[in-house]
């Protein structure tokens, strides 16, 4: 009984952490290159919506996920254009995208299905463990059984992000661009291109995070289903000091606290449900108070880079 509960707590934590993790990694890419991404929430909404729409259109959930990623990229291109080429205010741009995507998806829902609230259930979804052979492992089998393809993708992405940003020349360029773009430019690195690529990768990951919530959880899109997770991801990113592995730990921590709230309720813990719901948020603050050392983001993050007029 206790192992079962432990495993269910763990899998629940991991599933809850998955969309946060993907979105937070999206933030890692874009902020490491110097572009603050407040738009994570909006891009997730776009990803969640378009992945469902394309699943409806094609009948394939994987194509749907692809579409979620592609539209995440499109959405982030708005941010990239404003933040990089137009040297606009990145926070306004992000806020605008959040507003726009909330409205646009609701609008399209109306146009396409003539209803509001949620789409019909998609003909396919990706909510079950893709690696069936893992389920055969004793004890751990039940653990793997409760994972979705997105869980694997998220954790692979942690590795990919760490590897690309810390172990490749390109990653060194990205981090240099985020810290000191002028220095990067003087050694011949194209600041704009590097930032564009990072913001688009960010869009792809946040789009995938959105698809996790729709295709990967309930098989439909619902207005409000992202429910502030983009902002929690933003917090996790800062909590994780803009580092993929630490960000993963931050997301897992948050997921674990949320799972603990849920588990506590199913145990019938006798406390007002509102107080239980506060657990993840209070715990995060307490942990932050306990952690010594400031979170220092990439220095040039949020600053538009002016190429010298030539």
């Amino acid at each position, binding site marked *: 009984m206790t192992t079962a509960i432990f495993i269910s707590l763990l899998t629940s934590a991991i599933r809850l952490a998955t969309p946060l993790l993907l979105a937070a990694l999206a933030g890692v890419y874009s902020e490491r290159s110097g572009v603050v991404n407040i738009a994570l929430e909006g891009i997730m909404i776009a990803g969640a919506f378009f992945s469902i729409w394309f699943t409806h259109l094609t009948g394939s959930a994987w194509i749907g996920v692809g579409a979620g990623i592609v539209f995440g990229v499109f959405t982030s291109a708005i941010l990239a254009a404003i933040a990089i080429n137009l040297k606009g*205010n990145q*926070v306004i*741009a992000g*806020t605008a995208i959040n507003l726009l995507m909330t409205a646009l998806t609701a609008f399209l829902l*109306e146009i396409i299905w003539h209803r509001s609230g949620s789409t019909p259930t998609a003909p396919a979804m990706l909510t079950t463990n893709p690696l069936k052979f893992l389920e055969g492992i004793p004890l751990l089998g039940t653990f793997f059984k409760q994972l979705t393809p997105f869980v694997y993708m998220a954790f692979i992405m942690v590795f990919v992000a760490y590897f690309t940003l810390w172990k490749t020349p390109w990653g060194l360029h990205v981090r240099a661009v985020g810290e000191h773009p002028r220095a990067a430019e003087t050694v011949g690195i194209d600041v704009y291109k590097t930032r564009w690529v990072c913001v688009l990768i960010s869009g792809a990951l946040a789009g995938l995070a959105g698809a996790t919530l729709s295709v990967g959880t309930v098989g439909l899109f619902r207005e409000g289903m992202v429910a502030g997770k983009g902002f929690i991801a933003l917090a996790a990113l800062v909590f994780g000091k803009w580092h993929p592995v630490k960000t993963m730990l931050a997301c897992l921590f948050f997921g674990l606290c949320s799972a603990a709230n849920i588990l506590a309720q199913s145990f019938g813990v006798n406390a*007002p449900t509102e107080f239980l719901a506060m657990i993840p948020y209070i715990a995060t603050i307490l942990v*932050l108070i306990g952690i010594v050392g400031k979170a220092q983001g990439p220095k040039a993050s949020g600053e538009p880079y002016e190429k010298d007029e030539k």
Partner: protein
Amino acid sequence: MKEKFTYVWSVIRLPVIAVVFGFLTGAVCIAVTGNNPVVAYIALFRGSLASIPGFGETMYKITPILFTGLAAAISFRCGLFNIGAEGQYVVASVAAIAISWFGQGLPRIFLLALILTAGFCAGGLWGGIAGFLKAKRGINEVISTIMLNWIALYLANYLVRIPLSPNVRAGLSPAGHSVVVPEVAKLTKLKAIVPAFGYSSAHTGIFIALISAVVMWYILFKTTVGYEIRTVGLNAQAAEYGGISKAKNTMLAMFLSGGLAGLGGAVQIIGLVYMVNQSPMLPGYGFTGLSVALVGNSHPLGCIPSALLFGILENGSRQMQLAGIPSEITSIISGVILVFIAGSLVIKLAGDRIKAKWGKRAMRTEQEGL
């Protein structure tokens, strides 16, 4: 005269063009829904501006977002990003309800002052927590305010459900809202002063908001407190060198910021809603406030026209709905306006190109004239 016009135009050009683009995009979306954009926009403006009651409705929409806009503006000026106006607003509304209920016996003026002070302090405290954590423990205010938003929401829901619930207090029929603000603590409706405001819900809270904007402007730009806050925002190290404490000003700015959001919550409660409902989500004013501040260039007075713009849109949305157009359209319009304001360089470039063309044409005409 012409110079003055040129100056004013240079200041408002970007927002104006952004608004035009926003409405054009909106028109396309309206057309897609099979409606006539002209009809929709007439409805929008008729509802928001064309009549006194309509304008009154716009004013009640402006009131809370002007407060949260000011809250965001002052935090921006200190180099802080207060995403927490939502939570600060919520705690303050609960505080306002509690004071108005428990202080019913007090003289009206005194009670109102007490409620507003309580709202300001409650919001200020909630913001101050983030400020304190930032100043003393270096915790990024973005994280702490996001977390505090949710904590505020759940705390308010609990308080409304149990300690402040009328049915728990008086054994009445169940309700999802708190006790109601007693008559004595309600702000005066504008229609009670000027009957022309008719059906509108506008209340004297708008004046409190406008006064707050002016006071904030004064504090920020005319006092040493403002000088210090702005200096910390622009260069904290230079500020410290100049004997300006970063920690103190961070806390002060977060307190003021939270206080303004809180004042917004209190005013909204005693001016319009009269109770706090249990709610699954944050009211959203804090986020709109960010937009208001950003469009208003983080200037307290700039927040006024900016809040007016968002107020018109939000109120106009109701009229468009009555004309059968989905409410999302106005959100799309606001979003597009913001996109264009964020990317204001496009506008500038387009504007310059147009100007160049006109300039050439003007020159040609002159030459032809010669």
